[in-house]
């Protein structure tokens, strides 16, 4: 006959205080978890850890650039190229916001066709070009250039573009033409950053005519053999490899030859920090940081910055006799 189970010994009975504590323990544990999770997520969010850019798909680690396929031309660098992923997700294009990942997230709103570029001012044959007609008149060439940002980071980018000089000669500059002024599209509906007042819009840039005619200076329409992504300045942007990146005005709609030095956006915004020339110069520091070294995107340690971004041999002659600390 089965015995009824004996009552548990009194030593095994949960004390009443502990029994009551169980509820309090569960409540406290829940409050702990909720507070830790809520405050932790809030902190991570506040400090930028949840921005979509931070969750971007892992890019190739290290320098990991592919060597360029075609034999390098006279202006090409054979240095490892910055991965496509980095070139197209780490951008300064304030028309789409001031964070590096804003342009790649938001530039989808830019319509790059149809697109025209007006070339006018001190020229005998002012003309408005459809961008596709322009690209068939001046077929893009491969150019692998170093790109040095004024913020002390750099990339190596395989561009496709044509020499700006070819276009300028086509419209026949008059003898009054001394400078070239450029303007980006002005359309806050397509470029949401233009609704913010941190810069004057549209973005404008300028070059001296001899700088514009230099064979290194190109208008780029592609990179890595693909049409220029919007965040990189589609459909047409300026690339001047011996100057800081902000000179490379994006999404250009107007090129005007002028007698006088044209205004330039960053110079207007902070004249003591950004000059008209903006030639890469390790000896002239930005007031807030050194320009002596730079971080090549994908590399861990800094490397020395070269005068004229390593293009001194080709372009230093343009500035013979000029005090580069004054004309920074």
């Amino acid at each position, binding site marked *: 006959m089965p015995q009824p189970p004996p009552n548990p010994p009194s030593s095994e009975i949960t004390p009443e205080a502990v029994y009551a504590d169980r509820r309090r323990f569960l409540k*406290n544990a829940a409050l702990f978890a909720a*507070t830790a999770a809520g405050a932790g997520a809030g902190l991570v969010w506040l*400090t930028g850890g949840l921005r979509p850019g*931070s969750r971007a798909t892992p*890019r190739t680690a290290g320098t990991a650039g592919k060597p360029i396929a075609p034999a390098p031309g006279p202006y090409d660098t054979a240095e490892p190229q910055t991965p496509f*992923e*980095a070139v197209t997700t780490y951008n300064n294009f304030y028309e789409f916001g*001031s964070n590096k990942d804003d342009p790649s997230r938001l530039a989808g709103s830019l319509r790059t066709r149809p697109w025209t570029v007006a070339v006018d001012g001190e020229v005998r044959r002012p003309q408005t070009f459809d961008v596709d007609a322009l690209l068939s008149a001046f077929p893009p060439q491969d150019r692998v250039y170093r790109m040095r940002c004024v913020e002390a980071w750099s990339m190596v980018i395989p561009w496709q573009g044509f020499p700006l000089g070819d276009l300028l000669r086509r419209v026949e500059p008059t003898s009054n033409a001394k400078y070239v002024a450029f303007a980006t599209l002005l359309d806050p509906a397509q470029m949401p950053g233009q609704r913010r007042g941190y810069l004057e819009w549209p973005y404008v840039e300028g070059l001296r005519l001899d700088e514009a005619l230099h064979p290194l200076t190109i208008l780029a329409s592609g990179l890595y053999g693909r049409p220029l992504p919007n965040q990189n300045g589609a459909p047409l942007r300026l690339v001047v490899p011996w100057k800081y990146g902000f000179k490379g005005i994006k999404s250009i709609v107007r090129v005007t030859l002028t007698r006088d030095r044209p205004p330039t956006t960053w110079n207007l915004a*902070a004249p003591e920090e950004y000059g008209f020339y903006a030639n890469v110069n390790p000896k002239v520091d930005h007031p807030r940081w050194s320009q002596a070294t730079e971080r090549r995107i994908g590399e861990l340690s800094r490397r020395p910055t070269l005068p004229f971004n390593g293009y001194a041999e080709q372009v230093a002659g343009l500035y013979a006799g000029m005090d580069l600390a004054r004309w920074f």
Partner: protein
Amino acid sequence: MSLAARAVATRGGPRPWLKPAVFVAALAPLASILLQASRGALGANPISEALNRLGLTALVLLLASLACTPAREVLGWVWAIGLRRMLGLFAYFYACLHFATYAAVDQGLRWKAIVADVTKRPFILSGFAAFLLLTPLAATSTANAVRRLGFPRWKRLHRLVYAAGALAAFHFWLRVKKDVREPAIYATVLAALLLARAVVRARDRRRSGQRPAPRPKAAPTVD
């Protein structure tokens, strides 16, 4: 039973879960940076991203620690004082990581360049000065240190935190090229916290003028 759970079970007070929870939350930004770094998900310039996020976390936690006293005085949240020291120490912890990342990873321990940066550039100098000012505060954060210094002197020393907060906000302001929206928010929060203190102090002075016996709020509150 995990450590945190034991802390929850055994700590006394009306909110035994609060401090452990804030402790874990304060480690979340570091965990997120390390996790994303290990997955290569810090973007194209991971060093700059980590540096910026460590610095911003230090600023946020410093402002949070500065919010504790006004939270008690203005909102009556007495429990906030219990978090003040821990938040301040975490702010210093992130400031240390921020500076270490700048010096060791960003600058590669090139001391000449670092000294030139600190001495020549208000941007770097303001951040470095904020970091230096927080050091004695972190070193005297124990109850023992309060006893050793005596409360009035300890309190005077810890007023350095206002200068550190202002310098840290200024440092953030100088970092951006042109879009000052985010630094402006932090500067405004700091100004509001300092203003709240000034208002509370004026109120207390007025009250103590009416009643000779001041409130015993000057008792050490080193949690």
